């Protein structure tokens, strides 16, 4: 077994059943009625909180840090990812055989977990310090990033 397929080991019984079901389905379906089905693989940041999940209209099987599923189309969506993350935990990668979510989409997916808590509100202040600077080794780890900025076109009256 290669490293790339080792993660499938815990799923061996489920995969065998799925393959048998798929073989039967292919055998009984009329020619041309079969729609392309793709396998999905999701890697989590930690151990899945549950072994079975229904998210994105798909049934997922989770073992350890991985969840797998099979569905038609091969499309991936932030919405489906969010539904899964809210059930099994933080998602690291979310992909089908042909598509995958990008980095910002993964962040957007995981944001659903952050919104479950009440994060501290940011205190207003003057923005400064645009260069990334590492903290001293003896202080808690910290870094300052460049500024995130957006200027839209809506005009507002001054806030009192």
């Amino acid at each position, binding site marked *: 077994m290669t490293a790339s397929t080792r993660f499938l080991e815990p799923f061996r019984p489920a995969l065998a059943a799925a393959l048998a079901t798929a073989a039967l389905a292919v055998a009984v379906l009329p020619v041309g009625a079969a729609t392309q089905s793709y396998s999905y693989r999701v890697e989590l*940041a*930690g151990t899945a909180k549950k072994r079975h999940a229904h998210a994105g209209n798909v049934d997922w099987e989770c073992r350890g840090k991985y969840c797998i599923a099979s569905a038609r189309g091969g499309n991936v969506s932030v919405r489906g990812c969010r539904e899964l993350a809210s059930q099994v935990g*933080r998602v*690291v*990668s979310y992909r089908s055989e042909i598509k995958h979510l*990008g*980095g*910002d989409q*993964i*962040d*957007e997916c*995981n*944001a659903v*977990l*952050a*919104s479950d808590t009440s*994060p*501290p*509100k*940011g*205190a*207003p*202040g*003057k*923005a*400064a*310090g*645009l260069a*990334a600077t*590492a903290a001293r080794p003896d202080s*808690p*780890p*910290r*870094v*300052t*990033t*460049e*500024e*995130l*900025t*957006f*200027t*839209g*076109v*809506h*005009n*507002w*009256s*001054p*806030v009192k």
Partner: protein
Amino acid sequence: MRAAGVLGAVALLGAVCVAPATARAEIFTIETPVSVKGLPPEVIDGAVTCAVFTEPDGNSSNLGYGGFGSVQFTVKGGAFLGRLRVPVQLDVASASLLRSYRCTLYFIRNVGGERKSATAARLSDPRSPDYREEFRRARGSRFAGEVGGSL
């Protein structure tokens, strides 16, 4: 002998139950200046999410995921100006393993009483399928919906 075995099992079970409560993940703080203005009235909050990686190019490749954190801010009068401290809960043993980070700006809209969030880039990029006219950027203004780099 048998009693000792039972006691050992109970002790082991106790240790397993207590371990998750006492094992606290290390927090890595990312400080991010944020400057937004001219937002449409439907935007009620904003958020910055940060992810860290053990790979030097993880902020672009998404490889070596090492942790995630998010913080929200309140948008008033279509604007927010401030510095946010984003606590990133690490999924790796030590912050010394981290090599890159990425932080992304989100806008949270009130749509029919429902909170909907999307990245500033997706809402304001005319090439994005999620683009919305009310999020178009002011002509000549600087835009940074995502920042990232080395650690």
